[in-house]
C-alpha cells in the first residue's frame, strides 16, 4: 500500500504531484480506508468541504513542518514526534473551526478531532515529507489534501442530492428522493458503490486486468 510506493530519484514536478494526489493515489478511492470515518460522516457537501479543508490544512501544515524540522528529529523518536506535530495542528485547526464556524462545526466536531488518527496523514509524512525537500513536500501535501477534499465533496454531493434532494442546502427537489442515502447505512453503500466504480474504471483503463490498489490492507 501507500508505505511501499517507490519514490523516483528526483522529486516530480508540482503538477504531477497534485494530479497524483487527486487521481492517481486519491487517498480515499485509491488508497482507501484511512479516512473512512470522515468520508462516511459527510451527509452534505458543506460537511464534506468542512472536513476536507480541515484535512487539507492538517496535511499541508504537518508535511511542511516535518520537511522543515526533519534534520532535528532523531530517527528513533520519529513516529512520536510526527504524532505530536499532527496533534498540534489538528488541535489548532479544531479550535479555529470551532471558533469561526460554530454551526457547521457542531455537526462534524468529533471527526475533526479524529483527523489525528488518520493513518494516511502520518504515512505521507513517512513516505514523502521525511525524505524530500520543502517545495515538493508542499505540493505533495497539497495534492493529497485536495484529493481528500475532492473525495469528500463528491461523496457529500452524492448523498445530499439523493438523501435530501439538495445541493449545498439549495433545494433541488422538494421531496426527499432516497432518504436512505442520508442514513449511516446509505453511507456505506455510497462508498462501496463509488469504490466499485473507480475499480471498474481502472480495470477498463488497463484492459480488463485486475486493479492493484483498494485491495483492503490494514491501515491503523
Amino acid at each position, binding site marked *: 500500500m501507500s508505505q511501499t510506493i517507490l519514490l523516483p530519484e528526483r522529486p516530480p514536478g508540482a503538477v504531477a504531484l497534485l494530479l497524483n494526489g487527486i487521481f492517481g493515489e486519491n487517498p480515499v478511492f485509491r488508497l482507501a480506508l484511512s479516512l473512512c470515518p470522515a468520508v462516511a460522516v459527510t*451527509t452534505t457537501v458543506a460537511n464534506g468541504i468542512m472536513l476536507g479543508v480541515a484535512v487539507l490544512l492538517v496535511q499541508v501544515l504537518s508535511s511542511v513542518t516535518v520537511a522543515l524540522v526533519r534534520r532535528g528529529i532523531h530517527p528513533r*523518536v*520519529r513516529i512520536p514526534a510526527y504524532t*505530536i506535530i499532527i496533534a498540534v495542528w489538528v488541535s489548532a485547526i479544531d*479550535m479555529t473551526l470551532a471558533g469561526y464556524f460554530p454551526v457547521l462545526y457542531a455537526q462534524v466536531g468529533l471527526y475533526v478531532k479524529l483527523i489525528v488518527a488518520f*493513518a494516511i496523514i502520518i504515512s505521507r509524512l513517512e513516505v514523502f515529507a521525511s525524505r524530500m525537500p520543502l517545495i515538493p513536500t508542499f505540493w505533495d501535501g497539497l495534492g493529497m489534501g485536495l484529493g481528500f477534499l475532492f473525495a469528500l465533496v463528491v461523496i457529500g454531493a452524492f448523498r445530499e442530492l439523493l438523501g*435530501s434532494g439538495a445541493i449545498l442546502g439549495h433545494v433541488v427537489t422538494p421531496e426527499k428522493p432516497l432518504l436512505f442515502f442520508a*442514513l449511516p447505512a446509505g453511507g456505506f453503500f455510497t462508498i462501496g458503490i463509488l469504490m466499485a466504480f473507480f475499480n471498474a474504471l481502472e480495470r477498463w483503463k488497463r484492459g480488463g486486468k485486475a486493479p492493484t490498489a483498494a485491495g483492503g490492507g490494514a491501515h*491503523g
Partner: protein
Amino acid sequence: MSAPAAGSGGAPGRAAAGPPTWAPGETWRIVLSMTLICAAGAAILGGVYLGTERYAEASRQRNERAAVTELLSLGSDATVKEIRQFLSPARDAVIYRTGEAGADAGGNGTAEGAARAPREFVFALDGTLLRSGEIASANAGEKGLHPLGRIFVASRDGAPAGFVVEGEARGYKNRIRFFVALDREWRIAGVRVVEHEEDPGLGAEVATDWFQGQYVGRDLDGAANLDVTKDPMPEDWRDALRRRGTADDPAWTERYGPLRSRESDRPIYAVTGATISSRALTDGVRATILHFRRRWELLEPYLRAAGEGA
C-alpha cells in the same frame, strides 16, 4: 496483515532492534529535539487558543443577539438584556443574574447599559426572595451553579418588545438546545433550534424553518397544551410553511392567516419517521414557556423596582 499500521509500524520494530548503536550523546539530542517540538507545539496551541477563544466568545454573543432580534422581528435599534438563570449548588434556590453591559444589542453598548452593574436575585424554591443586590461581575462564582438557561429581554425605545428564552430537551440522540421567542402578548413569535445531533433527513428536520413555523402564533393556553400528532400534515399548510421565511412577513401573514388560525388549535405535526425528535422539541418548548412564565411573574416586580425592568 502484511502491513501493520503506519502509525506504529516503525516504532516497535526499531525498539526491538535493540540498542547496539546507542551512544550517550544521542539521548540528549533526542530529549532536546522532543522538548523543542513540544515547546513549539505548546506555544502554537496556546496562541491559537487565546486567539480563537476570544473571537469565538464574541461571535457567539453576536450571533445570539442577531438570533434574538430576528426571532422577534426587531431592528438593530432594539436593546437586548440578558438574564442568566442558575440553580444553587444545593439545588435549593434559583439565582437570576442580569447581564453585563456588553450584552446589549447590536454591539452599540449604550451609556445606560455601561453604567449599570450586574445584579443578582436569589429566590427560594417556593418563590420567596432570599436576597438581591449588585454583584461585581455577571460571571463571578459560577462554579457549582447549575445553569437553567438564559432569558433575553428585548425592548425598543424603552418599551418592552418581547422575550427569548433558552431551553433544552433530550432528543433522540443527544440534547437539543433551542430558543423560544415570545412577543409582547406572550404569543410564540418563533422557535429556533441552535444545537442538536439528530439524524440528518429525519430528526434533523426539527431544525428547519417549516417545522419550527408550526409553533408561531400560539398563545399561552395553546403553548401549555402543545401536543404532537403522527397524522400527515395537510398539503396546503405544508406549502404555506415552506413559503414562510425565518421571520414573520406581513405578506405571508395576509395570505396564509386563515390557515394559521385553523392550525393554531391543532397539535404539531411530527416529522415523518422522527416522532421522538418532534415530541422532544415540542415538550421542551412547552416546558420552557411554562417555566419562564412562572419565573417571570416572580422576577418582574423586583426587576422593575431595581430599575432593570424592560
